[in-house]
């Protein structure tokens, strides 16, 4: 890449690749050199680099290319990279985007992020150390994320006297390990990043090596032909500037389409034909993978954001349950049963993990039994969504087979998933149509069904107030039912303990039972500590369409501890009861409960009467 080369036509387009290696394998040095030798580094940056090399460098008098890359202040001080950084360089043949991901143990999440958009991964190994546990881990993650092209860059060859046998042994070790991972190609290349041997130009010090240089390989590697896949088009935006134009804007996720081709909208199963492929630069005859276009169609069909348009001859999956690999990103562990937002293409739905089948040991590829996933862990699980969605297995189409999970309370991106296959069990169990309509049973009782969901600390007064309320309503001739947490745990939920996962299941079952009782036309009163907001929200969703009133029995912890009717706090403080709410497990107070009852200095009957007033106001009882 001589300076002043003609304007790069980049005939090969963009190649996105990922670099990974263990700390000190020379990743930063390698990228720094690639940037330098492709003239992506400007003279003023070189000047700073020269100065920095003297001050912080590890290479003596020479330039330390690794210093070019460190980004954020605190990382620079620690001299480790802790996030994904993107770098850019180009040659007359191709433009490159490098996702630079750290080799640090706990950063699976960064590598997965970088890998999700990469066409190729460069795995770095130190020639003196050979294939390490980390190398295997990187290869495994690359394979899970569907990267087909692997380059094994055997670095620091200068430190093993450019020994051929060492290189070949490492290449062989890796090939043996990577065989089952399903890569399309694994290419081993010997280099010295520090001295530049075989990075961009072949080296006289490697006379025995006749393959391409690292850059030569990156410039010429062929990627698969994405245009051959079946057509997939997630509708991102419905474009309706006036009554005469209605177009579906989006990016072709896979395959290609031409004017006149048939199209099918997954879900509604309505089909039509492509009328125009509209762009600002004029209409096109055809659009292929990655093209951001706007389609107009021949028939009026109801399509909105999040819908998937497909080739009718090769439909996508459509289901509300599927199996997927899931990578966990949040400090808070995965809670099976809890609902998260799931975003796939332009579609967002609610979803929960119904079964965690196993956790993957990323060092060995082995499967471990697990009840949850912690930060940076990968598992294989079944998920269920609150409505059917259209998708493909990730192996067939990345863009329509990948999803993220979002924590509904913190909005953090909690995890990322790759769908393996659809589960069609749900469609075998048809909903039994109820011949007595919704609300009829309650009307017969002269009331509306409702669920009064009490929440509060142990000893707050939930059961006391709930019992008074139950009795009063009964005396008013109302039809009620009381579900008390302690009692339910003796029967329906006696198999459950107090781990987070079991607590979620406890609430889920209680909410389902409450819902059934609601369908029977009852006013259901439940008294469960239900400490987590997310779970109460789940209960509310399960219980819909009945009126749902969250009743926060608000008693300060000190007061509960003072009351301690069952002596539980004393035991918990002594360490005899683990995971006790308020002691070593949190209580997340409601922020928007329909009713908040402060019990200190109040009378239980008066509080029960307040609830009855509220029920009258809401016309649940007359």
């Amino acid at each position: 890449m001589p300076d002043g080369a003609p304007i790069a036509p980049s005939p090969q387009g963009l190649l996105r690749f990922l670099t990974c290696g263990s700390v000190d394998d020379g990743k930063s040095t390698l990228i720094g050199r690639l940037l330098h030798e492709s003239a992506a580094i400007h003279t003023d940056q070189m000047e700073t680099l020269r100065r920095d090399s003297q001050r912080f460098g590890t290479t003596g008098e020479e330039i330390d290319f690794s210093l070019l890359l460190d980004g954020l202040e605190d990382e620079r001080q620690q001299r480790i990279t802790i996030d994904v950084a993107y770098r850019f360089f180009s040659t007359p043949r191709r433009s490159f985007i490098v996702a630079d991901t750290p080799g640090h143990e706990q950063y699976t999440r960064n590598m997965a992020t970088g890998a999700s958009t990469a066409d190729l991964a460069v795995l770095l190994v130190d020639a003196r150390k050979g294939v390490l546990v980390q190398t295997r881990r990187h290869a495994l993650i690359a394979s899970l994320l569907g990267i087909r092209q692997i380059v094994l860059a055997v670095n620091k060859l200068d430190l093993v006297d450019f020994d051929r046998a060492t290189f070949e042994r490492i290449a062989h070790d890796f090939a043996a390990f990577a065989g089952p991972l399903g890569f399309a190609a694994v290419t081993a290349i010997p280099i010295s990043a520090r001295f530049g041997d075989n990075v961009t130009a072949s080296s006289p010090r490697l006379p025995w090596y006749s393959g391409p240089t690292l850059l030569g390989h990156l410039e010429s590697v062929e990627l698969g032909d994405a245009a051959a896949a079946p057509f997939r088009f997630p509708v991102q935006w419905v474009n309706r500037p006036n009554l005469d134009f209605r177009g579906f804007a989006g990016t072709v996720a896979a395959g290609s389409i031409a004017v006149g081709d048939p199209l099918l909208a997954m879900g509604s199963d309505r089909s039509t034909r492509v009328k125009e492929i509209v762009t600002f630069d004029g209409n096109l005859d055809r659009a292929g993978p990655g093209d951001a276009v706007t389609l107009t169609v021949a028939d009026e069909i109801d399509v909105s954001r999040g819908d998937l348009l497909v080739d009718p001859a090769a439909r996508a999956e459509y289901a509300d349950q599927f199996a997927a690999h899931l990578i966990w990103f949040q400090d808070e562990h995965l809670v099976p049963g809890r609902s998260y937002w799931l975003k796939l293409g332009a579609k967002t739905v609610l979803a929960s993990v119904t079964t965690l089948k196993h956790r993957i040991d990323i060092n060995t590829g082995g499967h471990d039994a697990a009840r949850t996933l912690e930060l940076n862990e990968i598992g294989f699980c079944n998920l269920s969504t609150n409505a059917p969605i259209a998708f493909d297995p990730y192996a067939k189409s990345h863009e329509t087979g990948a999803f993220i999970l979002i924590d509904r309370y913190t909005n953090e991106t909690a995890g990322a998933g790759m769908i393996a296959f659809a589960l069609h069990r749900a469609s075998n169990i048809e909903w039994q149509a109820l011949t007595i309509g919704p609300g009829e049973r309650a009307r017969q009782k002269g009331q509306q069904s409702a669920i009064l969901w009490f929440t509060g600390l142990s000893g707050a007064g939930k059961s006391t107030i709930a019992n008074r309320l139950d009795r009063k309503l009964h005396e008013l001739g109302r039809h009620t039912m009381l579900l008390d947490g302690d009692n339910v745990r003796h029967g329906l939920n006696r198999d459950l303990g107090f781990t987070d996962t079991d607590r979620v299941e406890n609430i889920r079952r209680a909410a389902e039972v409450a819902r059934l009782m609601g369908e029977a036309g009852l006013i259901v009163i439940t008294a469960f500590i239900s400490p987590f907001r997310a779970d109460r929200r789940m209960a509310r969703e399960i219980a819909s369409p009945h009126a749902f009133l969250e009743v926060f029995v608000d008693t300060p912890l000190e007061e509960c501890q003072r009351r301690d009717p069952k002596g539980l706090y004393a035991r918990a403080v002594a360490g005899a009861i683990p995971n006790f709410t308020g002691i070593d497990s949190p209580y997340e107070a409601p922020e928007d409960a329909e009713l908040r009852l402060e019990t200190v200095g109040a009378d239980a009957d008066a509080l029960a009467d307040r609830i009855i007033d509220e029920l009258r106001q809401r016309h649940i009882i007359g």
Partner: protein
Amino acid sequence: MTLAADILINAARQKPLPADLRQLENEAIGILREAAAEFSRPVLMYSVGKDSSVLLHLALKAFHPAKPPFPVLHIDTTWKFREMIAFRDATAKRVGIDLIVHTNQEGLARGINPIASGSALHTQVMKTEALKQALDQHGFDAAFGGARRDEEKSRAKERIFSIRGAGHMWNPRAQRPELWHLFNTRLRPGETMRVFPLSNWTELDVWRYIEHEGIEVVPLYFARERPVVQRGGTWIMVDDDRLPLEPGETPEIRRVRFRTLGCYPLSGAMESGAATIADIIAELRGAGVSERQGRLIDSDGEASMERKKREGYF
């Protein structure tokens, strides 16, 4: 020129866009559409520079034949080059887009300016504070910016959808991982998003794209004879009579151009013969100086850009 006329010109263009630029264009359009669909009140930050010109052009493409479903916001410090303001107004009129111009009136009343107050305070009050004021006043929940990851080391890790907490603070630890093209756009009250569709473009990509698409940019990018004085190793243009000359300093006419544009007393020009886009591209390819070199606000300290970002600078 009307949109239709724009299309005619585009259709007349011979050369198809090179594959890498087409990929970058597609990606940016996808990002613009996603943000427009997910946020209730987005706005496009328009700095009048070349990146903003590209961003605006992409916004016209993304929503065609509709107009972009958001207004354009310019933070006017009152110290921009006169040519920038003229270009801004002409562009808004030509494109027919809703332009909001905001100036920090309070800062103006306090007499904040780049000369007496210094670049750091001026930038803080007239740019950073002004931007926050404008976003808050109009209730914008997302703002598109033309920033790129190649501009500076600390930007290499910036997200495409970059979340800002209350007070528009940027917290590097709160940024969300971005996988595939799936962006988590959820906000809590008080939070806003900055969205950078050009994240993966380089300076060279921007110029190549401008050339291919025939996008108009402010003439200050092209070498012309301009009245300048030399200060701190760079050329400062005497754009109006507000720039106090130091004793013995007289403006001279030099052939200069700008690589980045901002407030004229803070924007260094370089001597250059590059009078066309093709010249600029050739100059860039010959390596040279990084574009931030001409931005005086960065020279305050090594990691100063990152600190500014934490304070809410774009």
